């Protein structure tokens, strides 16, 4: 069955865009995850990935066309199950009108890019058409160049292409540029495993690839320091109960996590040395606390963001979390809703996990891992009493944050939770 390929909305405000460049041509076989085209919006150039498998039978919008409306059909794909249709007579690809330019100086066609990514390892880079500098950077960063489209003379891969790939300029570019990094599969991941054990091969989703890449990056590049405190929850639970009574009429029910999000944000504002991003020779000191909330979804994990959580009432945080989590589970979050954030929170209390260490989500510099609130013997006034206590571990990027600052952070957080009226003040 032919599938209509429609102009995608690459940002929430996008209404139309420019079809900057086709990365496939008619007759090409594409599979899920392959790059089909480059689309320019008013903000950035982004890549459009295939979702379906099949053969591109027809390209309906020429590259370079401006003002293509979101939802307009731009190409047709013949599904793989169908009897392969006789390939349509391939229309002469619009040649550059100056095809006869010998162009010794600067001109060269930019269309001869390898559109089909090949599975290969880093050794293949030697045979890739790339500048020595591009190859060097690729080796340093463990990047596979075989699927990179070069923009240099005669499709040569140049430094700019590799940097775009490695997301080195991620602070300066649009968030969607980050996803170019999806193509950067680290050397460690591209190995094949030979085994006799009965198994099935499960193709990685893009989300899984992103998780793999980002967590590997984090653990390889970010020196983590872990600081754990026990926090007494009784006062917070009491306050939550009282608040929920008064919020019931509005149909809002605060969770402990909603309150911890607010506590985390307030702590970040009070200990600004922990609300940072390490960036080479600089550090970004954020003036706002945007909290990424880890949400488990069937395909993996995603972190929708509560923007400026320190200045939002608990009721608002609660409704936002519920709404974002629901859309996350449906896979309907927009990139700006999950890319960014200044710190993260991951809560495994509902699974009964007592305590754990979370992996920092770069370029953020800290993440809070929240364990289960449980009744424990607790010393109150030199006597053993029973209290509801949870263990919380902060993971900090030690390049940016000193141990003492991290400790101060945990102390402030503990005080805020144990004397929780600060959360509603």
């Amino acid at each position: 069955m032919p599938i209509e390929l429609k102009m995608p909305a690459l940002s929430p405000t996008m209404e139309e865009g420019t079809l900057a460049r086709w990365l496939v041509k008619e007759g090409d076989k594409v599979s899920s995850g392959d790059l089909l085209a480059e689309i320019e919006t008013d903000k950035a150039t982004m890549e459009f990935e295939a979702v379906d498998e099949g053969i591109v039978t027809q390209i309906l919008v020429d590259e370079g066309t401006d003002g293509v409306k979101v939802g307009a059909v731009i190409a047709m794909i013949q599904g793989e199950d169908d009897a392969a249709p006789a390939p349509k007579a391939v229309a002469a690809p619009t040649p550059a009108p100056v095809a006869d330019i010998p162009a010794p100086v600067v001109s060269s066609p930019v269309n001869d890019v390898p559109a089909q990514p090949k599975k290969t390892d880093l050794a293949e880079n030697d045979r890739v058409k790339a500048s020595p500098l591009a190859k060097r950077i690729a080796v340093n960063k463990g990047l596979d160049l075989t699927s990179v489209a070069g923009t240099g003379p005669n499709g040569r891969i140049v430094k700019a292409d590799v940097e775009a790939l490695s997301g080195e300029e991620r602070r300066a570019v649009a968030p969607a540029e980050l996803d170019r990094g999806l193509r950067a599969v680290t050397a460690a991941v591209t190995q094949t495993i030979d085994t006799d054990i009965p198994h099935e091969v499960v193709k990685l989703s893009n989300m899984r690839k992103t998780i793999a890449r980002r967590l590997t990056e984090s653990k390889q590049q970010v020196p983590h320091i872990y600081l754990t405190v026990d926090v007494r929850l009784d006062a917070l639970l009491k306050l939550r109960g009282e608040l929920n009574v008064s919020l019931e009429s509005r149909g809002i029910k605060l969770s402990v996590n909603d309150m911890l999000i607010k506590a985390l944000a307030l702590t970040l504002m009070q200990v600004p040395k922990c609300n940072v991003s390490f960036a080479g020779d600089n550090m970004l000191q954020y003036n706002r606390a945007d909290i990424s909330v880890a949400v488990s979804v069937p395909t993996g994990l995603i972190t929708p963001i509560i923007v400026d959580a320190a200045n939002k009432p608990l009721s608002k945080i609660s409704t936002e979390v519920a709404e974002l989590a629901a859309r996350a589970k449906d896979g309907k979050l927009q990139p700006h809703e999950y890319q960014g954030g200044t710190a993260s929170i991951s809560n495994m209390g509902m699974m009964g996990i007592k305590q754990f260490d979370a992996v920092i989500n770069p370029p953020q510099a800290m993440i809070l891992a929240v364990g289960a609130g449980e009744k424990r013997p607790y010393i109150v006034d030199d006597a053993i009493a029973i209290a509801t206590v949870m263990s919380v571990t902060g993971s900090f990027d030690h390049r940016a944050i000193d141990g003492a600052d991290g400790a101060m952070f945990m102390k402030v957080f503990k005080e805020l939770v144990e004397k929780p009226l600060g959360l509603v003040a």
Partner: protein
Amino acid sequence: MSNYDLIVLGSGPGGYVAAIRAAQLGLKVAIVERENLGGICLNWGCIPTKALLRSAEIYHYMQHAGDYGLTAANISADIDAVVKRSRGVAKQLNQGVTHLMKKNKITVHMGDGKLLAANRLSVSKDGKTEELTAKNIILATGARARDLPFAPADGKRIWTYRHAMVPSEMPKKLLVIGSGAIGIEFASFYNDMGAEVTVVEMLHRIVPVEDADVSAFLEKALTKQGMNIMTGAGVESLKATASGVSASIKGKDGKVIASEFTHCIVAIGIVPNTENIGLEALGVEMDRGFLKTDANCRTNVPGLWAIGDVTAPPWLAHKASHEGVIAAETIAGGHPHAMDPKNIPGCTYCHPQVASVGLTEAKAKEAGYDVKVGNFPFLGNGKAIALGEAEGFIKTVFDAKTGELLGAHMVGAEVTELIQGYTIGKTAELVEADFMHTVFPHPTLSEMMHESVLGAYGKMLHM
């Protein structure tokens, strides 16, 4: 009324090259010029100054003939003859451009061009006006010398580069204001020709866009040649008198001293030629007086393009020419590669010469690079010693992480002819290993380029 695919306004090294490239690609092209084909570069800039400097150089060698075991007696300089030679060189090249226009079937309209619309302009000469239309127009009107606000050039005592190129008499005591490429070249020329030269630079070092090591070396070398260099200094007032100019100069120490000179050259920068060409009515976007363009030289007005000194820096002839090619190929429907400003070399033809490409060491560090620096002196090069030019050095700056050549900085004999080697390397994105693997011919000055790279990685051989 004639109709063209492309009209180029201005025939300097940007404009005439754009016209040739467009004509080669089959476009019907016209070029409009108000004065001389070839523009400032060929008639009043790059080329005639090199002719002057060559005379100064030979004069210098003759004065030092003894260093080479030769005797030269009764040496003297005839400034009129030197200028005449320079004008002859300019004329020859001007005719060369005329020939190139004819060969490429480019129609030349002499006169003042003015945009009437994005695709229409008028050319006026001697009271007659004709109108031309074109699908595309490239603005390549260039720039001119910036005047001191309190003492505009009069051509008699207070000169711009243009007056300095055709002196009616040899200045005895010369004040040069500004130590960029133009200021330093004229200072060097007149110093070699025997004038007593003072250079005043507002910033704390001369040739301030160059690497700090180059500035320091050049200042020392020029001072040794007898030049008086005042950095961190400013000219407070300047007045032409019957016999010369009187200037009060505020020195580094804040003290103002009054000095008398016979002549003064003002070289404090350039002003783009954007007036009276009809830009205002079209709403062409500018940035600090210069035309704003994209990577392919488009202005914000469709069909209207701009290249060279009338656009963003660097204001160099070779940058203009390269933009001319990019604009012409884009107009013809091609996809030329954008130019990387970090790969545009710069040359200053003082004595010793200065040449550079890419980032200075300080700029590289500022940009966050962890750098490896190599520096090889002329004193360690056989050819330099044989030439009697053992003064200077070649410095290279690499990114320690990737081996990328971030910048190269040279001062010494003939370095302006050497810098292209590093420029090719940078453009092709070679890394340190490629430079190391290259076999440099012996005996040449270029061997120092090799040694400098080796030095950056602790492998220098001859020092």
